[in-house]
């Protein structure tokens, strides 16, 4: 139906357009050398918060390096790095209220770091031990924290995007001024769930920020085989949603864009799409080897745009950070990660009963029966089930 408020323009010669002329500019503030672009204005960022952000970035990098190494050593089954995308993730999270909900894809450990997830908490999840909140049920890196308002990661891609729209709708009704940010890759944005989520958010005016990490690849598939358009941003036009494209390696631009997006979302109930342009510097996951599908040269271009070095240069220009601080920080983090890893690895697995709990709020009679049978079986063959043989003894 033709909108009633605006008289549609009419033409009498057929004109096709693919929208290419509406190309979306990229918002940047910070140069790689730590100085601002001409005409750029740094956001209000207190020293404390700036350092909180920076430390989270460095911690994330250290964690990623150490855990990949641990995976290579066979200590861990699987890992995924955020390397290269720390500013996109942490810059955006830092612009939110800590009570806002985060619904992430899987490469956003930086957001958790920023919110204060402890090394112990990371390790317990990755080693699926008895202290893992997720009770050892999901693969490494599927973190979650109700305390930190970070929804537990789910592997099926894009499912969290319409969920974020629904979550934010609930926040709007609750009227407490909170919003939801939802992270996803440019690959996941091809899923039908993405389309549903943006459309519903725009129609129902929901306080949600859609943050697309466009890192150039979905596993081996380059963005050019994912979509023909200039990135994901132009899709917002299709839903009449505010959109901004940001240099994802620019911590200041990410922070400022998200801060303003949050205001639109929370104060005006205008959902916003942010496309953070970056690059997945590491392999897709510890199971992947990118040498088969992209060049070292291409990687180098992006290594030269390292978001952490960029922020460090800015901090140093402001005299907020020294090389000594850096050395100290790195060392502390490395040590902390290694020591905590060792402790976490030694913790026992989750209890046998956790096999059947949380399927429903209460364990059903049928599940109780299945657990009993299992325990009896394990008692018969304790050697075959070394993780749980001891516990099964306790059984009926």
């Amino acid at each position, binding site marked *: 139906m033709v909108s009633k408020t605006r008289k549609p323009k009419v033409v009498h010669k057929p004109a096709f357009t693919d929208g290419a002329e509406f190309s979306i500019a990229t918002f940047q503030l910070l140069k790689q050398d730590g100085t601002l672009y001409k005409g750029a204005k740094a956001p209000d960022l207190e020293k404390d918060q700036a350092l909180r952000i920076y430390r989270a970035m460095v911690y994330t990098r250290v964690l990623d390096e150490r855990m990949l190494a641990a995976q290579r050593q066979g200590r861990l089954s699987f890992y995924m790095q955020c390397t290269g995308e720390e500013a996109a993730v942490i810059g955006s999270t830092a612009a939110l209220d800590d009570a806002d909900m985060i619904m992430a894809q899987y490469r956003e450990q930086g957001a958790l770091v920023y919110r204060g997830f402890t090394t112990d908490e990371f390790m317990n999840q990755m080693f699926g031990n008895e202290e893992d909140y997720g009770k050892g049920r999901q693969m490494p890196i599927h973190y979650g924290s109700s305390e930190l308002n970070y929804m537990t990661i*789910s592997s099926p891609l894009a499912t969290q995007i*319409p969920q974020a729209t629904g979550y934010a709708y609930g926040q709007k*009704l609750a009227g407490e001024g909170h919003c939801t940010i939802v992270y996803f890759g440019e690959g996941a944005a091809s899923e039908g769930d993405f389309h549903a989520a943006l459309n519903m958010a725009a129609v129902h005016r929901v306080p949600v920020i859609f943050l697309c990490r466009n890192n150039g690849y979905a596993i081996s598939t380059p963005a050019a085989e994912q979509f023909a358009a200039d990135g994901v941003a132009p899709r917002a036009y299709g839903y009449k949603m505010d959109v901004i494209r940001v240099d994802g390696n620019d911590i200041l631009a990410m922070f400022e864009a998200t801060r303003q997006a949050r205001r639109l979302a929370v104060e005006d109930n205008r959902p916003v799409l942010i496309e953070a342009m970056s690059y997945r510097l590491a392999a897709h996951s510890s199971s992947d080897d990118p040498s088969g599908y992209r060049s070292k040269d291409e990687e180098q271009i992006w290594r030269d745009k390292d978001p952490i070095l960029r922020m460090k240069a800015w901090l140093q220009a402001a005299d907020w950070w020294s090389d000594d601080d850096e050395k100290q920080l790195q060392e502390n983090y490395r040590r902390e990660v290694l020591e905590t890893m060792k402790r976490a690895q030694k913790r026992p697995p989750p209890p046998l009963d956790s096999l059947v709990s949380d399927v*429903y709020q209460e364990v059903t009679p049928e599940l109780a029966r299945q657990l009993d049978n299992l325990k009896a079986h394990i008692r018969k063959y304790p050697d075959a089930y070394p993780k749980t043989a001891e516990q099964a003894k306790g059984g009926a």
Partner: protein
Amino acid sequence: MAKMNMLQAINDALDIAMAENERVLCFGEDVGIFGGVFRATSNLQQKYGKARCFNTPLVEQGIIGFANGLAAQGSVAVAEIQFADYIFPAFDQIVNESAKFRYRSGNLFNVGGLTIRAPYGGGIAGGLYHSQSPEAYFAHTPGLKVVVPRNPHQAKGLLLASIHDPNPVLFFEPKRLYRASTGEVPEEEYRLPLGQAEVVKEGTDITLLAWGAQMEVLTQAVELAEKEGISCEVIDLRTILPWDVETVADSVFKTGRLLISHEAPLTGGFAGEIAATIQERCFLYLESPIARVTGLDTPFPLALEKEYLPDHLKVFEAIRASVEF
């Protein structure tokens, strides 16, 4: 008590739930001002406002994705899928998300506040895509509850229980009974238990088990059977998942015979699960093979719907065959 048809009973249940708790929301395609294509949500938008009862865009995966998020946030989401035949675009959100939300997070998060309503079943000349009975697709999914009412009284009590249940519930409504089935329904709130089958008629020779619209068919078949002196025990399963093994097994211990009937195709239908479980539990008590009277292993037809459906005559014949085995 008031005389209501099934649609009125459902509408009444939704009305009560929304009046009682302002976090209860009803939404789906055309459920707003129009009240849904079957009018199950009539007047709810008028009464509770557009924020709590509203039309969604036409996208089932979005409706359930949205509902999952809303429920995770703590709201009570009652989502309508216009026909059960159109629930499949939301299959991933239901089977991979709703069902596993609590488990995968170690109970940090859950979508217990979610209820999905959908009209199901044949007998309305709807052909392939307005007749399906998809309960078995969901019954293979731990974490979900699946509920089907047989009449207005059951519909109200089971729907209220589903909305209040702290787990995600699929509530399939037998649409051919929407207006055809009427009965006395208490005006106040009440809840019927989930996970419990109901013995609606006692008998000694054979146990007949079904749910939803198929209960009516059993009743007609029983009339024929009892004329021939066969005493039937009739059970309404009511909750398909998790199902009430005890009540069914106890009955079969007594009667020694079991017949299960549903409209969905035979192969992979939920009758298979029941038969497999009961042959194990009641092996030494069974006097004849457990019989299944179901739809054919084809998509749902139209012109020959009558031939396709497991009607009372087919059930009656199967009763006779079982007793005469």
